[in-house]
């Protein structure tokens, strides 16, 4: 597979908008054309060649190296191809993404996968708030796709999420699954307060029991759910370790809620967590 590599050489003043850098957009261009591309930062713009060192050959795979938190909207609108990112990119990575893959070796900022409708984002570090959340003004968050975060996540993971899968292998902050409409969120570490607040449907899978279960959720028994092996199988292609953890969940204690919003959602506590009751 051909690979184009852009290495951040001189970070410009002001937030750098990297939404234009998609494999499909660059694939038909020569290296010179790519160097001449204008990138906006703050209220100004500069040639890509003045900001990045450009190597390789444009194609399906685009590597962005040495990104900093000033690099916004990396991979926004990605529909196909693969983005490999090293460094710690900033906010709104994979915003409105509809397909393809983004792999981040480092931490990412707020609003990862905002309004996402397909594709896969894997982050090997930690991320900020509102993972898979909604665009400003939208009534629905993430609509499809998969987000897997190896580290921790901030507040409001999967806010108003409609469909898809978000897995946080570390801890997640307050209001995980806030006003969730449907979809699946897995948290392997500690989950912050108010999990599933305002949740209508969907599943919140927690490996650890929260310090306090939300008062608007009702316990409704312990089950060996068929969905677990299926979920493990789905994830196995992407992350074997995560798949093993899900397979180890065993029987799950099921809590229904949010009872103030119809109560068709559920929080599933892994057997180990339930046993520690």
């Amino acid at each position, binding site marked *: 597979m051909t690979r184009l590599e852009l290495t951040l050489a001189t970070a410009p003043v002001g937030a750098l908008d990297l939404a234009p850098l998609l494999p499909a957009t660059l694939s038909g261009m020569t290296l010179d054309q790519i160097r001449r591309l204008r990138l*906006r930062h703050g*209220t100004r*713009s500069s040639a890509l060649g003045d900001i990045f060192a450009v190597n390789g050959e444009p194609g399906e795979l685009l590597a962005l190296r040495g990104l900093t938190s000033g690099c916004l909207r990396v991979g926004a609108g990605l529909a196909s191809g693969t983005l490999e990112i090293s460094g710690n990119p900033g906010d709104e990575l994979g915003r409105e993404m509809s397909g393809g893959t983004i792999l981040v070796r480092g931490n990412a900022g707020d609003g990862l996968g905002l309004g996402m409708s397909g594709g896969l984002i894997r982050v090997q570090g930690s991320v900020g708030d509102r993972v898979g959340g909604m*665009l*400003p*003004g*939208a*009534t629905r968050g993430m609509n499809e796709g998969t987000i897997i975060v190896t580290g921790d996540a901030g507040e409001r993971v999967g806010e108003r999420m409609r469909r898809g899968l978000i897995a946080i292998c570390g801890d997640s902050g307050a209001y995980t699954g806030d006003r969730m409409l449907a979809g699946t969120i897995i948290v392997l570490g500690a989950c912050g307060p108010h999990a599933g607040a305002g949740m209508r449907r969907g599943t919140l899978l927690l490996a650890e029991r929260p310090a306090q279960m939300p008062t608007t959720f009702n316990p409704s028994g312990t089950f060996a759910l068929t969905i677990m092996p299926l979920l493990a199988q789905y994830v196995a292609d992407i992350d074997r370790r995560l798949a093993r953890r899900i397979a180890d969940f065993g029987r799950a204690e099921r809590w229904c809620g949010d009872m103030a919003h119809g109560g068709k959602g559920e929080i599933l506590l892994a057997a180990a967590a339930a046993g520690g009751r």
Partner: protein
Amino acid sequence: MLTRLKGGRIYDPENGVDGEVRDLYLRNGRIVEAPADPREAKEVIDISGRVVMSGAIDIHTHIGGGKVNIGRMMLPEDHATDLVAANRHPHLGCGHAAPSTRTAGYRYAEMGYVACFEPAMLAGNARQAHMELADTPMVDKGAYVLLGNDDYLLRALAAKRDPEYLRDYVAWTLNASQALAIKVVNPGGINAFKFNQRKLDLDEKNAGYGITPRQILTALADSVRALGLAHPLHVHGCNLGVPGNVETTLDTIRGLEGLRAHLTHVQFHSYGTEGDQKFSSGAARIAEAVNAAPNVSLDVGQIMFGRTITESGDSMRQYAGSAFADPKKWVGMDIECEAGCGVVPFRYKDRNFVNALQWAIGLEMFLLVDDPWRIFLTTDHPNGAPFTSYPHLIRLLMDRSFRRDMLATINPEAQAATTLGAIDREYSLYEIAIMTRAAPARSLGLKGFGSLAPGARAHITVYKDQANREKMFAKPEYVFKDGQLIVRNGRVVEEVHGATHVVHPDYDAAIERDLDTYFDRYMTVRKDNLRVTDDEVRDDGRGELVVHPTKRST
């Protein structure tokens, strides 16, 4: 300096000039007589073959005040999906249906508009409205203050106070809120909503006060007449959007008994109940009544297909419409229990029978009302469509075959239900100049506007004469405001700030004592907190206050 605009084709209905080729001379912001020797002009701009009109005026456009801001807050996607390149003008802003103030001013200027009027300012919210208008550059502006659902007026009517007392109150409100005219929205109905009435017909009593909309309408229309305001009572009638409301509107016209009134966004008030869907066009009946009633003028409130926001003081009707919100969210508001407001996002669809027929009804109205001096071009921005659709609307009016092509694309049942296809009328450039320039200037009493005669303010738009009228009106070649070139080829080249137009009719100071007592007793602020001072409008010299004369000016 004397500037000569050479060889343009002039359309100046105010002075009866219909397409005559002649030169225009400008000096110190005014149009002046041709000098004896044309060489006196130091600057000559050759506009041979171009169409020249005065600057356009929008008589009814929601560009400032509380509800517009609610729309902006509730729909960030309206801005996020309609970005303006930041390098065009720094900090210009953006937005589709509820653009930021600065964007609105620029877009108006870029279509050749020089004055815009916000038709729904609440006295209690006047300061906010004027601040937004002050932030709207490029155009002159003004606002109509809402009366007719306020507790004070309704109490006075219920107590059968004499007309003189009402006039004093109306005059005080105009002064305090720095308004140009009076508007009434769903007379008494917004108030009745708070007494759990969900509709209020023209002769139905408001449960709280025992007052009917008809009483409110005639009382206000009479006050406006007695105060001698140039612009008649601006009426947003009862039953907006209700099938069958054509009867209400006809009743309203009859009920005015010769008093002058301006019926606004009449398209929304011209629905019958015929046909399988119990929704039909009442445009022909309204047009007939308007043609026979010289005391009535109207603007259409044409709808255009696409996404927009409906923002109205009519909380009663907006509540009813909230079920159709797209996207599904809406806001209903009340300010100080004085009036209401509802903001409902909406998408007009050409495949939808009702929307398609609404579109046709608006166009029927334009084409069936004979006198262009009494019908103004509006989309009730943003309720029918954003004002940026005016050029498209002008093309629909001026180009019969284009209109028929568009008609062929809408819902087939709506096509069958409208007479639009059979109407041959095409507006001429002269008539467009009347309805967008001369007539609104006259209706609002704006001296020096809507005219290209010597002495008039040098508001001039120059268009390339193109067969495609949409393209032509979307992008004027030159726009002059007060003699200054502000737009070149549809792009702003100079940012200017317009004046605010107001009236200050005199009133008996005794009303202030009553109001003081009333405010102390019932309101959260004192009466004097409402008053917007002249200096506030002047805004440290950025703005300018133009006070128009009334019968009772001091």
